[in-house]
């Protein structure tokens, strides 16, 4: 397989939820027996141009800290997928692609972000000049020019643009339906319904509630409006913009649904 195709596939994998059903040999489970005393310094506390942060599965670099919301560029460690309009920049820890995608980060998002790495202010300046003044990026620091619409680099860029839309200041989001009820579905290999379960369960961002006719998935503000695929034990049951309430006609208890529920963002 071509290296660039491998990188693109790994990028797609990085957007999926890690499979939690993997079996591990129980005998091997113990903490590694070493103690490292070195810890990071406090650099991450200072908000600086060039700092790279991660929010969920998305990375961004601070481009302007004086404006609020902070101006940021979307970036990624999958630098091989840079287009001719993106900058390849060396970070302290790894190489990055700084994408020509401008977004804005408010305090709410910034607080939920984790400091990852740092690139030079000069590289940020190059990208700012390109975005705001139309100055060309240095040809030795950009990705390859691609002709095919389906080139891995273009598919990557489109995905990054879509995934980071929520960071636009006036992003109205996708139209969020209040409630969607799915038709009864034939779902393979579901566990048998049991009697001794609570009528309620929850996972991060989702509450699972049992009522007379349905199991209802209640998505919180973070999830409702996102485009995603919803699976019950590998059976795709819904694809599209997540509503606030998704009713599923299935004879299961919330705890059982919790075990087999998977939401994959597109």
């Amino acid at each position, binding site marked *: *397989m*071509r*290296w*660039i195709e*491998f*990188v693109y*596939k*790994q990028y797609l*994998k*990085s957007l999926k939820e*890690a*499979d*939690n059903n*993997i079996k*591990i040999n129980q005998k*091997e*489970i*113990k*903490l*590694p027996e070493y*103690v*490292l005393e*070195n*810890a*990071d310094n*406090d650099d*991450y*506390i200072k908000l600086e141009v060039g700092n790279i942060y*991660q*929010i*969920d*599965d998305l*990375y961004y670099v601070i481009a302007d800290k004086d404006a609020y919301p902070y101006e940021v560029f979307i970036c990624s*460690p*999958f*630098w*091989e997928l*840079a287009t001719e309009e993106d900058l*390849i920049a060396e970070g302290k820890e*790894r*190489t990055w692609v700084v994408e020509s995608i401008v977004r804005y980060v408010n305090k709410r998002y910034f*607080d*939920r*972000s*984790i*400091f990852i790495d740092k690139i030079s202010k000069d590289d940020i300046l190059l990208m700012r000049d390109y975005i705001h003044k139309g100055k060309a990026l240095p040809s*030795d*620091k950009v*990705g*390859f*020019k*691609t*002709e*095919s619409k*389906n*080139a*891995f*680099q273009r598919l990557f860029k489109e995905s990054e643009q879509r995934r980071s839309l929520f960071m636009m200041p006036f992003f109205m989001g996708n139209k969020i339906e209040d409630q969607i009820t799915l038709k009864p579905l034939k779902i393979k290999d579901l566990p048998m319904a049991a009697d001794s379960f609570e009528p309620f369960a929850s*996972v*991060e961002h989702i509450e699972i509630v049992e009522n007379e006719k349905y199991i209802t998935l209640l998505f919180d503000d973070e999830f409702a409006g996102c485009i995603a695929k919803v699976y019950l034990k590998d059976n795709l049951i819904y694809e599209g913009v997540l509503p606030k309430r998704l009713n599923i006609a299935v004879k299961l208890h919330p705890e059982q649904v919790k075990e087999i529920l998977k939401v994959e963002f597109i």
Partner: protein
Amino acid sequence: MENFKASLIKFLKRENLSKNEEELLVLEIKKIVFWASRDPDISEGAKDIYSVEDLQEEILSETFCKLIEKRNIILSAIDKGANVKAYLKGLIIHSTVDKLRKKNLKTVELNQNLETEMKTEKDKLLLIEAEEFAKISLNNLSKAEREALCLELLGKGSSKSKAAFEKAKSRARKRLKNFVLEYKFSSVVVEIALRVFMSELCKKFVNIYR
């Protein structure tokens, strides 16, 4: 998830973990490592350097090292509600890709004696891509097309009639164009492929052919 987060926080704060907490912490991180590396593409990419088990072991150790090294950052982020599972997943996937990247990009550097001309990571990627394009092209062209293309690249004439030679060249060029689109290559990759790899491969091909 909450139990895992609590165990992780205790670990990062260097507090003593109960056996259950320790097991849960290692198990959850191992699951992500296994998920990230149990992939035929990873096994294929790692062959000749790692067994998947060795790769998993190395990634797992590195993940714990990184967690300790970055504990202040992670603790502060958890405190503010960051998605720690996404962080771990990113850390593990990128460590895995980094390991294979080192192998793949280095191989080309060693194969080609072009370090003075092409030094950056991007250059190495360009060489990998160009080599790939040259191989795909030469493997997929017909014998006549390959011969015509090679003779043209090497600046040599053909023993065939001029018309037949031109026709074969034109067909070969058209097919190259199709490969660019079909396999989504960049034009700069094709340029390097023609300049470096195809003429090298053609030399071998023409010698064998003769």
